[in-house]
């Protein structure tokens, strides 16, 4: 059997090495290598998808396509990768977003080599985070992504990039170190000293107070990463200063590290403690969702606005995971988790599209302030309608990507903790803020300044097309993703 997971995982790294070896290559060539590499990676991810998550011999303990090699046998760490229904959709999303980002960024002329190399390293780190089945390996990829993102923001960001980059790096490192503590606790607590995440999921090594402490450490890590109010303050700064490509990856892929970790580590490795703390997490989720929506409402900067809606959307995911932890009914748990995973994918697609669109607007106008625009729908209809579509998807309009996800989360919430359904207010607020944004930027009197604004070109259409396509497809027929997710979530038992 071809080790397709490892191939997909290290292909971007290989591309990065190839680029580093051609030190004097022209910018076009560098971008071409980057795009080809990430296209091949996407093919690899599709191949993984075709192979599916049904484990033929059940040796993977819930995981399929497991590949492993000894790494540090003395301490029980190994290179172990594999996928299940929770990680596979995220891998596919990651591969797609990176390809589109590299296509979109093919205009970058400022140190293109370093840019593409960082992007590709980031792609390996992201896919690695989702496929790692060894806690050390997971942590390694988790941290490498921070380093690459730091240089991405510091090197290609906007006005105040140095400060934002440092804040991002230090804040998220502060966030991720407790995870290291939890990993060590799980390692030392187990009967056999191993870092195999499958073993930890099968037999949670900690219980009682120790498990609760580990859970708190993990919750802190993933709350910073997701981010959950009040640990979200790095997010707007990082997003606003990051280049559009960086924002797309940050929101589309890296925020999912938080919610993915929440399911993979917190929910699966300390289920009992999570059940006890479930209500607290649920409250955090509800507050995050509502706070994100209200904060977004107050923004005048379009990019900040979208950044805050991320807090809102990821809040729903937290709610879903908390419901899954609280419930004793496997059916409700499956619905909640299906919704959460689908929400992560939808959010990647929708927010990815929105950040691309804001980037395109900024390329044209050099500003992101909403009151600077007006009537753009007439001047740049393609860009305008794309934004409207993505915005409607983001506010959860039925028929578009977020609806089936949020619907399932709310359904599960209603059955388990009915009071938490007040989170649904978030949808009303997001609807209001997007309508406000659309009317300010794209409707109304058109501003003379932008009369000559060009509409989307081929490169931009190529970037947005697939995203908008999948936003509609997921909205109308989400089952092709949900079936894969459901195979895993229905089998979860704790």
């Amino acid at each position, binding site marked *: 059997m071809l080790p397709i997971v490892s191939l997909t995982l290290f292909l971007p790294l290989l591309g990065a090495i190839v680029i580093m070896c051609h030190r004097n290559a022209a910018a076009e060539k560098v971008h071409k290598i980057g795009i080809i590499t990430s296209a091949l990676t996407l093919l690899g991810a599709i191949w993984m998808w075709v192979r599916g998550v049904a484990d033929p011999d059940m040796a993977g303990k819930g995981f399929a396509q497991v590949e492993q090699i000894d790494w540090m046998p003395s301490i029980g760490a190994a290179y172990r990768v594999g996928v299940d229904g929770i990680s596979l959709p995220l891998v596919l999303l990651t591969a797609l977003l990176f390809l589109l980002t590299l296509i979109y960024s093919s205009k970058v002329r400022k140190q293109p080599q370093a840019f593409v190399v960082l992007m590709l390293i980031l792609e390996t780190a992201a896919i690695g985070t989702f496929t790692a089945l060894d806690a050390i390996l997971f942590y390694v990829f988790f941290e490498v992504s921070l380093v690459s993102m730091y*240089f991405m923001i510091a090197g290609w960001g906007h006005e105040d990039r140095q400060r934002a980059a440092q804040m991002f790096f230090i804040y998220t490192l502060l966030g991720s170190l407790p995870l290291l503590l939890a990993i060590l606790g799980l390692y030392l607590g187990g009967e056999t000293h191993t870092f195999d995440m499958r073993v930890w999921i099968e037999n949670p090594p900690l219980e009682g107070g120790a498990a609760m402490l580990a859970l708190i450490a993990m919750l802190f890590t993933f709350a910073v990463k997701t981010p959950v109010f009040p640990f979200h303050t790095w997010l707007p700064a990082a997003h606003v200063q990051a280049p559009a490509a960086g924002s797309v990856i940050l929101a589309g892929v890296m925020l999912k590290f938080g919610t993915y970790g929440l399911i993979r580590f917190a929910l699966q490795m300390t289920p009992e403690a999570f059940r006890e703390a479930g209500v607290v997490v649920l409250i955090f989720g509800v507050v995050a969702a509502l706070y994100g929506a209200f904060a977004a409402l107050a923004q005048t900067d379009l990019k900040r606005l979208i950044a805050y809606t991320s807090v809102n959307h990821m809040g729903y995911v937290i709610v879903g995971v908390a419901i899954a932890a609280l419930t004793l009914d496997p059916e409700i748990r499956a619905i909640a988790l299906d919704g959460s995973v689908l929400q992560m994918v939808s959010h990647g697609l929708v927010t990815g599209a929105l950040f691309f669109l804001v980037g395109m607007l900024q390329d044209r106008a050099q500003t992101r302030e909403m009151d600077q625009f007006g009537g753009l729908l007439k001047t740049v209809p393609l860009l305008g309608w794309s934004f409207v579509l993505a915005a409607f998807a983001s506010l959860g309009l039925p028929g578009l990507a977020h609806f089936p996800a949020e619907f399932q989360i709310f359904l599960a919430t209603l059955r388990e903790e009915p009071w938490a359904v007040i989170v649904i207010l978030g949808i009303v607020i997001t609807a209001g803020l997007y309508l406000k944004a659309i009317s300010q930027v794209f409707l109304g009197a058109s501003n003379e300044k932008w009369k000559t604004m060009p509409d989307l070109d081929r490169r931009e259409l190529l970037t947005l097309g697939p995203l908008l396509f999948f936003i509609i497809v997921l909205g109308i027929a989400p089952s092709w993703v949900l079936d894969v997710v459901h195979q895993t979530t229905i089998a979860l038992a704790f």
Partner: protein
Amino acid sequence: MANDLALMLPEIIVLLTAIAALVAEMLRQPRVAFFVSITGLAVATMLTLPLLGEQATAFSDTFRIDTLSIWAKLILLPATILSLLLVRAELGGSAREGTAYVLIIMITLASLIMAGAGDTMLLVLGILLAGLGSFALVAYPRTDAATEAAMKYFVFASVTAGVMIFGLTYWFGGTGSTLLSELVILEKSPALAAIGFIAVVIGLGYKAALVPFHFWAPDAYEGAPVSIAAYLSVIPKVGAIFALAQVVRDLPVESAWQWIIAAVAVLSMTYGYLAALGQQNVVRLLAYSSVAQAGYFLLGVIAVGSSPLAFESLIVFSAAYAAMNLGAFAIVMQVGRTLEAFKNTGRQFPMIGVAMVVFLISLAGIPPLAGFVGKFLLFGAAMEAGFTWLVVIAIINSVLSLAVYLRIVVPMYQPSENEVITTDTVTIPLVRQVWFAGLLLTVLIGLAAQFLLGSIS
């Protein structure tokens, strides 16, 4: 006797190397002295390899040939060779070049004696021998700053050594022996054990630059040539830490030695990084960073006897620390001592930029580099020993450390106002070799730590 000599063969070779290099220097042949030194140290490293796995003592238990002392040789001897290359690049051609090599080899010998000490007298001998060489090396440039730094260093050393010897008399009084292995007797008189141990911590803490015995370090490193600072920040420090591990192996837990170590660790890590935050001089910044790193080492020392990871973590982190710290100092030699000098280097010299970033984020403990594996093992060891709270403090300090190291990374990718600076960044082949070796090792130890772990256990 013959067997004892055979077990100590590497140390004897190091001593002979120092003598041979001294003779060559007296004949005014610094080049020969240099090559003799390198060859001698390389031979001593080779001769250590057959000893791997040995657990023995020499000269009636006074010197230990065990995992720690063997790995001290395997790490410190190659690290000394790298340091000698740096010294050659910086001081080559100066009037007393060869003496620097001789002194360095003597200090390395002293560090090896400390790392294998099985007797308090050997410990004292190691500290004094290392001290004597270090004062001379720091004062080598004969500038005001260097002389002042050496003087400070000397006074500090005299006081701490005095206190240490005074404290050791309590142990001698309690056990009737200078052997460390006899310390178990003190189980019933914990106060006596504690007094002696505090004195040892003062003596070794000064060598390892632990807070609050670190005051000499930033001044000495700043006054000394950069290559000497690089050397002093690695070899004697590791020797002293290993010596501490040798001492606590036999110390009864009742003496609360773990709590003394924990307190010093917290102070070193926190103060080291806080002080580093305010530095404008990169050498001083790295000096404070090495104070903090010494605090991390103590997480391994604390676990000696209660966690099987203790020795492994100490050894892996020493190797990692030697590689990344020497590498970082080598880059400083090439680029300059001020933060200003680092402006724009990352863009102009991509390789130097990448290397320095790798060293710094490895020092901060970010995976998949050597520093991460080392710290990860240290954290694991301390947690297994029941010091989770200490690991939490170490982790918080890791965040602080990132802020410290980013202070160097940020200017590297900022455009420089005066482009002139770059002209004095001459590429010295020897220096480049050193940081390249450091880079390779930092990455390799990170990815292939199993190679070390496998041969330790």
